């Protein structure tokens, strides 16, 4: 049933033999020094040409015969009771086919769903929304967290206080820790609400056939959407099919069936016609989630040698009318500290609910913690990188600091003169961590066809990271065939189950299932080849598309010729993700170095360059891995310098729900980025692949914040680092 294998695991300078027990039908985990032919090779996305040519069918592109267009009416009031909703006039407008009341009793944020219609054109649907009569009774509201924390603030929920009970983490004795500190910092840091700004907005196309529902959906989790729809419509899950062939981003905001998906399916059922409902950019900003704001009161102390003695965090955050605004995890995870206390409280305000966003809590926490550590290092007159080395618990990160410092030129640049005219140069470094390990559940199928093609099918979805490509690479590697002969078929609940793409868990969850399926298929193919080659299946190997007898490589048959011996149309085998077993380590480290230039007369910050050093187990495709590093850092630039969901205190409306006013980094705002990967053989699954989406993002904003403080000689403790704040900090020097 199970077998024990000894694996060479770890990283350069930290290798050891580890014995793991694995099921018999599981291929032995890839280990240190593994010889790959496909994995590890820079591979352009398989669907890149299709996307670049505009031929990849995103949900937005789906057109069905007789398809109607849905639109949602949203409350212009941030807090109101709804006395009545009258759909009569809207329903009678020429071209309107269905109308739906979605109001409920109370509106708690401007943008909350009130009603929806489906019509033959989107323009008619929007006209119809103007004809819906809603009787609102506006109520007092509060949209700023500091206002909501006051005892006399309007209550967001009548049932309870705006400020929630604290989540507390406590280790050691914080008071004692501060007593032994040679220096300490006591400061308040704030971060604003950031929105996901997925380039493809939320939305779906829903089509009924009797009691069978097919939904094309912009989602990170096709099976979650399927199951939610099945619950909502009281259908067996197999009656619901969800398709996400291509997805224009999610960043955590697209789990499960949200309003727009349920509404599209409801309208389609009422109208007896397919309905497409894609949200506008403004709707996307106000209603589909966000990264909560934070206010972090940090006390941190260290001994003369830089060793941390105590950290205390008092944190408030607001996820609007939702929760989940904590940011303490980096304080617990990044550095060694014997005495630590964190208290996180959620504050309700009348604003759209938070949803998970790329490393929930981490970028906020890292920004405050890393800035505080820099302030502490300055007091102790220690090099800021050295301060981090002293408190770093991870041997992998220690190596990454060295690689990064060398590539970035830390020692020279940290001491270089800062001024050139009105420009001040600065550098910063921040640490990353994550657990991009997989979860159980995914199953994959690998199919060889008589013409030599191989398909790998799995009900996952490519959130934009390159999942389709790395799945095909893993299958090609295991089967010993060229990548060109493998296609990855994903994004359909008709394939075997896989998990939502979130928590950096897609690559580590799917690749072991794919590899096992490919190994099982290889077993079947070798049994097919054995009689032809006059050898036992276990004496055969496949490489470069040729099946050979291991001991006599001249006795061979082309993979494509072997496939012609398949008796039917194809030969298929399944595989599954085996729960993680032992191995070396599940932890990921990482660090990022940033260079900035600040114009001290205008307060304008330019991020010039980044060096990022990361580990993610086996890097399947270095090209898409670098692409993730780029994306994580660019998003960090946006959080550091520009992005801020602004709500007008007079009306409770978001004032910048457009691509014009909600500022995202553009080409000229993007620094030069150099990425380095430290290979770690971890042996926790058969591939040892870890996810990267979050590890590459958590430190970016912090590194920029630290670099700006270095440039101007004063910390700017509030994000974004806009000219007003930078000028104020300079004025205070």
């Amino acid at each position, binding site marked *: 049933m199970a077998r024990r294998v000894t694996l060479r695991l770890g990283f350069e300078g930290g290798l050891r033999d580890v014995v793991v027990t694995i099921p018999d039908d599981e291929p032995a985990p890839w280990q240190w020094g593994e010889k790959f032919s496909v994995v590890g090779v820079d591979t352009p996305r398989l669907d890149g040409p299709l996307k670049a040519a505009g031929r990849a069918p995103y949900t937005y592109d789906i057109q069905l015969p007789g398809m109607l267009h849905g639109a949602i009416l949203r409350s212009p009031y941030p807090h109101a009771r709804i006395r009545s909703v009258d759909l009569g006039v809207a329903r009678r407008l020429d071209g309107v086919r269905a109308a739906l009341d979605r109001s*409920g*009793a*109370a509106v*708690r944020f401007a943008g*909350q769903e009130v009603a929806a219609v489906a019509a033959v054109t989107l323009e008619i649907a929007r006209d119809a929304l103007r004809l819906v009569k809603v009787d609102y009774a506006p109520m007092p509201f509060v949209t700023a967290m500091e206002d909501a924390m006051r005892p006399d603030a309007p209550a967001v*929920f*009548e*049932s*309870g206080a705006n400020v929630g009970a604290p*989540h507390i983490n406590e*280790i050691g004795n914080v008071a004692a820790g501060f007593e032994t500190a040679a220096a300490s910092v006591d400061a308040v840091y704030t971060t604003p609400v950031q929105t996901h700004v997925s380039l493809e907005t939320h939305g779906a196309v829903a089509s009924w056939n009797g009691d069978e529902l097919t939904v094309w959906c912009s989602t990170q*989790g096709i*099976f*979650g959407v399927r199951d939610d729809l099945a*619950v*909502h419509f009281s259908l067996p899950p197999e009656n619901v099919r969800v398709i996400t062939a291509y997805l224009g981003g999610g960043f955590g905001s697209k*789990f*499960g*069936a*949200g*309003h727009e998906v*349920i509404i599209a399916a409801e309208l389609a059922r009422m109208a007896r016609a397919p309905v497409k409902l894609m949200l506008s950019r403004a709707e996307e900003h106000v209603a589909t989630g966000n990264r909560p704001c934070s206010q972090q009161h940090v006390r941190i102390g260290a001994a003369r040698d830089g060793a941390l003695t105590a950290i205390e965090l008092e944190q408030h955050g607001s*996820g609007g*009318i*939702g*929760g*989940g*605004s*904590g*940011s*303490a*995890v980096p304080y*617990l*995870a990044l*550095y060694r*500290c014997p005495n630590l206390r964190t208290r*996180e409280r*959620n504050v*309700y305000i009348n604003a759209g*609910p938070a*949803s*998970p966003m790329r490393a*929930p809590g981490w970028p906020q926490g890292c920004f405050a913690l890393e800035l505080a550590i820099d302030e502490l290092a300055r007091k102790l007159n220690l090099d800021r990188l050295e301060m981090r080395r002293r408190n770093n*618990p991870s041997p992998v990160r220690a190596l990454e600091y060295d690689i990064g410092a060398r590539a970035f030129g830390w020692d020279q640049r940290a001491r270089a003169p800062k001024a050139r005219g009105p420009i001040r140069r600065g550098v910063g470094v921040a640490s990353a*961590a*994550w*657990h991009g*390990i*997989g*979860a*159980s*559940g995914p199953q994959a199928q690998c199919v060889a066809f008589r013409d030599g093609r191989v398909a790998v099918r799995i009900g996952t979805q490519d959130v934009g990271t390159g999942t389709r490509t790395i799945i095909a690479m893993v299958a090609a590697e295991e089967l010993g065939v060229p990548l060109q002969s493998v296609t990855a078929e994903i994004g359909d609940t008709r394939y075997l189950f896989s*998990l*939502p793409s*979130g*928590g950096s*868990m897609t690559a580590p969850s799917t690749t072991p299932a794919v590899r096992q399926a490919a190994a099982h298929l290889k077993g079947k193919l070798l049994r097919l080849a054995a009689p032809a080659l006059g050898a036992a299946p276990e004496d055969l190997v496949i490489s470069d598309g040729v099946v050979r007898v291991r001991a006599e490589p001249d006795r061979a048959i082309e993979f494509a010729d072997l496939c012609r011996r398949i008796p039917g149309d194809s030969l298929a085998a399944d595989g599954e993700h085996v*729960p*993680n077993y032992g191995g070396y380590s599940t*932890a990921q480290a990482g660090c990022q170095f940033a260079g900035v230039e600040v114009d001290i007369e205008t307060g304008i910050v330019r991020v010039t360059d980044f060096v990022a050093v990361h580990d993610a187990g086996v890097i399947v495709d270095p090209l898409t891995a670098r692409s993730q590093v780029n994306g994580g850092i660019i998003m960090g630039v946006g959080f550091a310098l520009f992005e801020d969901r602004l709500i007008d205190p007079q009306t409770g409306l978001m004032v910048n729900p457009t691509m014009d006013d909600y500022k995202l980094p553009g080409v000229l705002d993007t620094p030069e980025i150099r990425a380095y990967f430290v290979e770690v053989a971890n042996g926790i699954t058969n591939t040892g692949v870890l996810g990267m989406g979050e590890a590459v993002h958590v430190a970016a904003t912090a590194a920029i914040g630290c670099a700006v403080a270095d440039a101007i000689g004063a910390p700017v403790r509030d994000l974004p680092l806009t000219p007003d704040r930078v000028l104020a900090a300079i004025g205070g020097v």
Partner: protein
Amino acid sequence: MANEPANPSAREPAAGFCAMLRTKFSYFRAPGGARLIDPASATACYSCMRTQRPFGPDDRPVGADSCRDADRACFVPED
């Protein structure tokens, strides 16, 4: 171990939540089949499958604590 990053699959899954409670990890399951809802998380964003909102049909906020209360009128037990 507190000085370690969050490790979702290392969590001991809790049980007894309303079947309508949703959060990112409610779409993941532990090897034993339980949904990976983590009441100790300070970053989980909860919503209700009945309303698609962070409050339930009774207009009260949803969450790992408040949606484990079988006496709440809208509570639906898991299968």
